[in-house]
């Protein structure tokens, strides 16, 4: 109940934030632009539209999650609104979860809106409503949920600018860390290999959420992969949120 009240308030805050609409506008422009790119490109135009479209949803979704998420907790502390809030019978973890769910709700609606534009563009081009695209969008959304948790974690102890840089780094590292697997195979066994293996275990692997290529090219995917990815997202998000709660619980609000 209390979490819901905070989440809805956070949602209101995000929805009344101009940056959200700015990003949404650019996302819409990028989606429309994918059609233009397709005209210029050689090869399968539909695939270009789908590729660029899904990538746009992913990138602008991440930007929304980071730019709004990193400010959420920080602003409460900076503007001292947290003083009155936490003097009410609310536990700190409830506050943090409320913030998290509020932003997740915002992102859900934004992803749905961007997804809708995307589907319409694809529909206009192919004449078919492609439900399978929704699967790719669903996993983009799961990734956004994780990024939101990360953004909130950083914003528990750092300024929005630093938090944004940290979260963006998390995103980039997450999408490049699969390269470590290749590196492991090319390294001879020994300390170096152990270290790389350690890194690859700790670092997030956001490619787990990336089904864009398979879905765009109509390749078959084992349902086990979906399940694994969803579980991976859930566990990682819970882990990050738990970390955020631990840090937040000990904090002095000066």
């Amino acid at each position, binding site marked *: *109940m*209390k979490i*819901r*009240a*905070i989440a809805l*308030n956070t949602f*209101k*805050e995000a929805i*009344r*934030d101009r940056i959200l609409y700015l990003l949404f506008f650019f996302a819409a422009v990028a989606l429309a632009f994918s059609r233009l790119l397709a005209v210029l490109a050689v090869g399968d135009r539909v695939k270009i539209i789908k590729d660029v479209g899904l990538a746009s949803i992913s990138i602008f979704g991440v930007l929304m999650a980071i730019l709004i998420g990193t400010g959420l907790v920080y602003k409460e502390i900076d*503007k*001292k*609104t*947290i*003083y*009155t*809030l*936490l*003097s*009410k*019978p*609310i*536990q700190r973890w409830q506050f943090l979860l409320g913030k998290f769910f509020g932003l997740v709700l915002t992102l859900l609606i934004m992803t749905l809106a961007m997804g809708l534009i995307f589907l319409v563009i694809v529909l206009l081009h192919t004449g078919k409503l492609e439900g399978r695209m929704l699967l790719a969008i669903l996993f983009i959304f799961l990734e956004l949920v994780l990024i939101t948790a990360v953004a909130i974690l950083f914003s528990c102890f750092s300024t929005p600018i630093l938090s944004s840089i940290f979260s963006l780094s998390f995103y980039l590292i997450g999408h490049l860390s699969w390269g470590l697997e290749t590196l492991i195979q090319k390294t001879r066994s020994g300390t170096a290999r152990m270290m790389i293996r350690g890194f690859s275990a700790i670092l997030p692997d956001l490619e787990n959420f990336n089904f864009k290529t398979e879905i765009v090219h109509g390749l078959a995917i084992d349902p086990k992969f979906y399940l694994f990815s969803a579980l991976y997202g859930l566990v990682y998000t819970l882990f990050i949120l738990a970390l955020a709660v631990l840090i937040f619980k*000990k904090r*002095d*609000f*000066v």
Partner: protein
Amino acid sequence: MATVLEIDNLYKAFKVGFIPKKREILKGVSLSVAAGEIFGYLGPNGAGKTTTLKCVLGLIFPDRGKIAIFGHPPLSAKARENLGYLPENPYFYDYLTAAEFLDFYAQLFGLKKKDKEDKIATLLRLVGMEKARDLQLRKFSRGMLQRVGLAQTLINDPALLFLDEPLGGLDPLGRKELRDVIVRLKQEGKTIFLCSHILQDIEMICDRVAIIVGGRVISQGTLQSLISERVLFTEVTLSGIDPADLIDLGEPVSTLGDRILLKVFQEDNIENLMALVRERRGRIHSLVPRTETLEDIFVEMVRQG
């Protein structure tokens, strides 16, 4: 009377700077607040008033010492359900309207829909903000924020209120109105803990005060016990007398036209002065004895502290 708030030997230090250096803000604060009183917590800027409050509200964690609110620790839900807090210079969610803002806090206490609407309407009336009900807080003036902030503290009908500089930044009329509201709340049986450095406010409405200087409570008690009834000096306004003749009798403070304001320290000198005025056919316009004020005590204590 029952004690609603007990603070015992509270210590808090903050680490400041790049190479952390400890700075002690609270150095053993102890005080107790009884049910139904307006308790004034008085101190110069930076003495530790707000820090004490934040410890009590569980926003920061004290290094040492004990706090009991209705006998419960600060972080317990039981303590929080029955208190309200208005921070200094309150900032609230500026994207909400006044009604939405109060509604949000009402939800946190789990108020039912019907009760909520009644409560919000009553509170907005109490603080004189019915007209601003549907206005976004970003368009509010400082005084309006203060009022809606006070309304927010009352949403759960708390027994104990913490008000940090509640009259700061208000115009004279606003100060009077909010002061009246605070007194009315006391009459309803609420206990009010008032932080301020504005002495007139405290002097007018507080039953008991504690004075904090440099992180220590240096004095605590009823206003009467702190302020003596002793006459410090008498201010006399007179005219028709040559200022040179007055030097032995008192200290001339200012002259306006032929009127002279004189501070007279000894009571004998007042008799002499009146005799002089009668003899020279001058006039006495006013004669005001000045007793000790809270300000005198405060200034004295801050200097010593």
